């Protein structure tokens, strides 16, 4: 089954009253359970495309179908889709609220959805990514970069997403910490029914992680590659 199908998709950013188109005519499909890689130099449009898939940029044209549901350009995500697609951002320092304890940041979406057993879910999530429970009541600045990125991954996973979007999840981290995070992601993918789309400028990371990937260049797909 295809989780995601893009046909003839172009993405633009609003620049004053004008639109600046940065991604042109993208066709691609992502199957359930695979790790899909988007690789390319900075400025090639890979993150812009990912932001559209996360529902963060409504300025796109073409046909997108996500979990069999056709998206409409210019509209925000509604209903279940918001929960099924989750994103992990590049900078672990900027993606957690600096003045809230981790428990508060992590509990917020769960409360909003009215889920039961919030505390249990959070401590379960912490165990899954190899953090200890006593860290739940810390502030983000009391954690290292690698630990923070793990918390960002927990935040995304608590909502039980089907599609996890990863925007350069390891490029702000040390090489040795990167290895830990990549192992963790591989582990989670094997344990859960999870589809991942990963953006990186490092071809080695994509080669290591992904089952299927494309190289982008100046807003277009340059090369498609199947690893298995």
């Amino acid at each position, binding site marked *: 089954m295809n989780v995601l199908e893009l046909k003839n998709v172009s993405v633009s950013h609003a620049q004053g009253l004008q639109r600046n188109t940065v991604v042109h005519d993208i066709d691609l499909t992502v199957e359930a359970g695979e790790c899909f890689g988007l690789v390319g*130099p900075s400025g090639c449009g890979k993150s812009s495309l990912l932001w559209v898939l996360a529902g963060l940029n409504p300025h796109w044209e073409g046909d997108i179908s996500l979990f069999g549901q056709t998206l409409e350009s210019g509209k925000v995500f509604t209903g279940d889709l918001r929960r099924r697609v989750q994103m992990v951002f590049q900078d672990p320092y900027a993606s957690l609220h600096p003045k809230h304890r981790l428990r508060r940041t992590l509990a917020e979406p769960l409360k909003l959805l009215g889920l039961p057993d919030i505390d249990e879910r959070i401590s379960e999530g912490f165990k899954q990514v190899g953090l200890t429970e006593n860290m739940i009541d810390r502030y983000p600045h009391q954690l290292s970069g690698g630990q923070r990125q793990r918390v960002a991954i927990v935040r995304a996973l608590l909502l039980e997403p089907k599609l996890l979007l990863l925007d350069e999840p390891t490029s702000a981290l040390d090489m*040795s910490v990167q290895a830990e995070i990549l192992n963790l992601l591989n582990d989670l993918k094997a344990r859960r029914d999870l589809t991942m789309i990963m953006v990186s*400028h490092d*071809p080695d990371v994509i*080669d*290591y992680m992904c089952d299927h990937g494309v190289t982008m260049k100046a807003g277009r797909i340059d090369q498609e590659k199947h690893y298995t």
Partner: protein
Amino acid sequence: MTNKTTLVDVRGLHIGLNDGTQLVKGIDFSMGRERVALVGESGSGKSLTARSLMGLLADSLVVDAERFQLLEHPVLNYDQRQWNRLRGHQVSMVLQDPKYALNPTQNIGRQVAEPLLLHQSMSRKARTEKVEHMLDAVGLPNPAELRKMYPHQLSGGMGQRVMLAMALINDPQLLIADEPTSALDHAVRDQVLDLIHSLVEERNMGLLLISHDLQQVADYCERVMVMYQGRLIDHLPAEDLPNATHPYTQTLWSCRPNITKRGQPLPTLDREHLETLN
């Protein structure tokens, strides 16, 4: 290219906070006109060590050493005025991110000329010529126009080249590069490192290259020093890296992902075991 001049000679270097917390716990090293890499994770004290060699540590930090010689100057108790004579002249530094390290309100030409203004007396015309020549040497196109541009008009790779031009314009004897490529993307990274390598070779300088990516620096350096939690735990020639015996060096060497490692977990650090080694 190694010859006998000792550029840096440090014995028992300690850097700590006022309250007695030690951040760098007594390291010894020396280097001549050679390319040396200082590798470690964030928080291992590698940047502090490098900054202490430039006299750029915050006032709240206490530096102590048995011997702390830079280009045969005893710099341990230097004040800022004495440092100013060395910095940017005989020792200079390239920082991590050109977005933050360059002054956004001054044009490139003025920033690259500043070390010349401070350390040499030359006519305005000669200075402009030297700046343009330097910008050309670091592989930037159109130096005459670039001189008038501002940092926000440049890409990350170009910004890093400008910083390199600033650092090298006075022909220093030692260049310290503190993670010069970690803000850049993959393709540009190798270009900048190649450039640093060839310029250092050409000018017969010493290079202290700081990084967290062991595999990447190995190609550009002759010797590698590995730091962990404020200690220098391993020291070896770059060609011996594949056969490193220290578990920390081994892991840093092999944790980089690539296509041949697909399907197998990457090696990670066994931090508890490392604690017992210290």
